[in-house]
């Protein structure tokens, strides 16, 4: 059927684009296009809506906010995932204190053996 890129596997950045470009196009077509040429203002409005104190020029419902800010939301979700994964790994990181002690003992043993073999 769609024989694009089946002779060789796709490169990693191509796989990435194959996921991101359709999503981005869908966003542009379904969200930005209906807003017309003043979509930057709409985005700014949505962002200001998020700030508790200020609010935007026009208040927006939650659904509208999510639609307009969906790319930002996706990046933020990725960020939350990254931070929590890193934090979890760092907190549960295995500190091999006995390995450090063991190597120091073995260094001393090895040095004795080296003296015995007359290696310096």
């Amino acid at each position, binding site marked *: 059927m769609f024989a694009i890129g089946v002779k060789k596997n796709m490169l990693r950045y191509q796989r990435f684009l194959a996921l991101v470009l359709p999503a981005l196009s869908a966003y542009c077509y379904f969200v930005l296009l209906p807003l017309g040429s003043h979509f930057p203002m709409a985005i700014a409005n949505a962002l200001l809506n998020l700030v508790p104190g200020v609010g935007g020029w026009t208040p927006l419902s939650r659904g509208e906010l999510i639609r307009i800010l969906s790319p930002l939301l996706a990046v933020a979700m990725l960020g939350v995932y990254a931070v929590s994964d*890193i934090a979890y790994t760092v907190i549960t990181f295995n500190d*091999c204190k006995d*390995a450090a002690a063991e190597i120091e003992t073995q260094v001393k043993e090895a040095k004795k053996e080296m003296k015995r073999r007359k290696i310096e």
Partner: protein
Amino acid sequence: MPPRSKSRSRSKSRGSSPAKKTLTKNSARSTKTKTTKTKKVGLGSGSANYTIILPVYNERENLPIMIHLFSEYLDLKDYHVIIVEDNSPDGTREVAKLLQDSYGPDFITILERAGKLGLGSAYLSALHLVKSPYVILMDADLSHHPKFIPKFVQKMEETGCNIVTGTRYRDGGGVAGWDTRRKVMSKGANFLADFLLSPGVSDLTGSFRLYETPVLREIFPKIVSKGYVFQMEVMVRIVDAGYKVEEVGISFVDRIYGESKLGAGEIIGYLKGLLNLFLTT
């Protein structure tokens, strides 16, 4: 005294499982290492099953300890060590020769090079001398402990994989001597590499690995990166070629206190190398 572990005699014919590629073609490109100035001393017997390639530079203190630990944990008849010595100013070469005299040229081979020519070329030069079916690569600064080598061998026998890699993040693996900042940086770098490259292993920058020799000969000539990214590129190319990789937890002991190995230049280099791998593999 730690117990000696005798490695079991391996049957050469293991049969190829469908998941592995057949390694029939010798695709290692002939590399122009600077061989006019390299000498090899004491080529050992060809009967060892495992060769450990140990590039050393300024490891005068640590090298004897490494060799002693090999003799403690490994059956020396089954292992061979190739020390690649890059003309260290601290006398590492002399110590290597003394060790070779003491433990025998059947156990230790020394590959002498004119200067610090890089890790990749060290491995490639040593590969020419390898006769055994399996190769172990590891660091010579005592951060990697030889006691894990039998565990690597066991894992390979159990699973029939092509590569065993040591991991600090799984299977009981860990690190001694890292503060929180260092842990965050290490995991952060690992997360980024994992996200971009999805290699299927938990520790991408690890350098303590057991390889089947044909895989090494095929993959290493293709590597263009340097530093941390070198090890990542190796793993990525191995996984892309369809070889099976298994992991064993290791303890990584960082004994280099106070020395900052991670400056801004290194981080930029890492990111550039990572991006290059993302775009080209």
